[in-house]
């Protein structure tokens, strides 16, 4: 297959397994490109991309912007905090105003789940979801799987545990979809209060004992406690959370085998993982960040190739 089955990247849920493989193969080529002395290709020189962020982000925004610039696209940035959204403009109006300036693609982060899907039904541009509330964060899941593939050779058949605040995490949901699609075995681990009810219906298992989960897995993806989304108290104290679900070097060394540690960032050092774990040989956290640029270049390149010339 040489073409994506979708016009937008709204979530992993809408992708096929072949789409993911095509994105990975394309990302392989871009990874080679970004390791050259001149890290830029001219493919998207006639494409304009708007990065619209209604929620704060550093890593994702930088990564997208870098990916767009390395493809030679023209980039405009928009943060809701400095915009007319504050003055009462609706989402569709805001985006249509931006599109009337001849923008071809919109990369959007929004606090409401489904915001990207809604937008794709109402405006005429390719939409990339850069995180919509607690729903999906597809490029993060793609780069996570890509990093597993790079480290372990394949995703199929691997045991992956996602640890932490599953309830409020878009990274968890997108990762579950992506990993299942590629044939990995998935468990989620965390305090009962932070695991959504009926999450087993996605074809995954729940494990509340961290040590058991770590002994089972090949890869542990450690998530942050999303304090900004915690409306009520889900666990007694951060200290207690760390004692039950934090990974430190002693725990890692006590396991039967050497597992791979991942984290989508930002890390709360000393809470979900300690510094010596985050900076250890087993951690591929910084590889994830590097791969993020290659994956986003691949996604943007493949989506842009479906935009016809005007």
């Amino acid at each position, binding site marked *: 297959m040489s073409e994506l089955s979708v016009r937008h990247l709204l979530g992993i849920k809408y992708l096929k397994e072949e789409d993911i493989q095509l994105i990975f193969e394309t990302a392989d080529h871009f990874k080679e490109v970004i390791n050259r002395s*001149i890290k830029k*290709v001219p*493919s998207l020189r006639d494409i304009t991309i708007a990065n619209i962020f209604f929620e704060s982000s550093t890593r994702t925004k930088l990564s997208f912007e870098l990916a767009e610039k390395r493809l030679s696209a023209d980039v405009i940035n928009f943060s809701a905090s400095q915009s007319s959204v504050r003055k009462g403009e609706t989402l569709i109006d805001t985006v249509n105003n931006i599109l009337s300036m001849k923008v071809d693609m919109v990369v959007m982060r929004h606090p409401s789940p489904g915001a990207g899907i809604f937008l794709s039904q109402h405006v005429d541009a390719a939409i990339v979801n850069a995180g919509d509330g607690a729903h999906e964060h597809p490029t993060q899941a793609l780069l996570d799987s890509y990093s597993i593939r790079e480290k372990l050779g394949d995703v199929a058949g691997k045991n992956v545990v996602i640890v932490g605040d599953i309830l409020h995490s878009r990274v968890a949901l997108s990762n579950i979809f992506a990993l299942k699609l590629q044939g990995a075995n998935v468990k989620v681990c965390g305090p009962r209060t932070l695991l959504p009810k009926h999450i087993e219906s996605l074809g995954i298992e729940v494990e509340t004992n961290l040590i058991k989960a770590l002994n089972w897995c090949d890869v542990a993806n450690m998530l942050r406690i999303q304090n900004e989304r915690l409306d009520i108290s889900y666990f007694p104290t951060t200290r207690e959370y760390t004692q039950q679900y934090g990974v430190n070097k002693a725990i890692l060394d006590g396991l039967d085998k050497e597992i791979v540690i991942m984290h989508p960032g930002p890390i709360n050092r000393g809470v979900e993982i300690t510094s010596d774990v985050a900076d250890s040989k087993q951690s591929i956290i910084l590889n994830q960040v590097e791969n993020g640029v290659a994956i986003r270049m691949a996604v943007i*390149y493949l989506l*842009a*190739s479906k935009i016809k*010339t005007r």
Partner: protein
Amino acid sequence: MSQKVLLSSKEINIILHRLACQLLEHHLDFTETALIGIQPRGIFLAQRLSKILKEDYGVKQINLGLLDITFYRDDFRRGEKTLEASSTKIDFLVEGKKVVLIDDVLYTGRSIRAALTAIQSFGRPKEIELLTLIDRRFSRHLPIQPNYRGRQVDAINEEKVKVMWKENDGKDIIYLVSK
């Protein structure tokens, strides 16, 4: 659809040896030269020339690279299909080297234009030459001509030159295919 043989296996072999000798005449020991095969079809020719130079003419070391030009092409979004990339493998510096771009068929010249841009990402070559097995005359869209050519062919736009290689297609043969 009909096809006629442009070059047989024997003729291809003779031409490859002549091209190898011409390269040798201009580049002597190849220490400051880089042979760059253009993906996807130019790599067979580049690999074959490199093999002949080493085995039949005693050249010890050849810098052989593979260059993918997909992201530098000027027809992105202009066709029906997504342009699919191949791998690039250049594990030496082209800075200051004499680069020979190698492709099987020279037609409009647009691939070579893309390759000229792409190779700049790996440094500033001292000079760049072009070697092509088949040169389709009178069909250029750009002012690009080969320094070394296997055979010149007059073909109309509806016709297609099909180059087949033993290592990829089972045998060495070149067809002119018309609709």
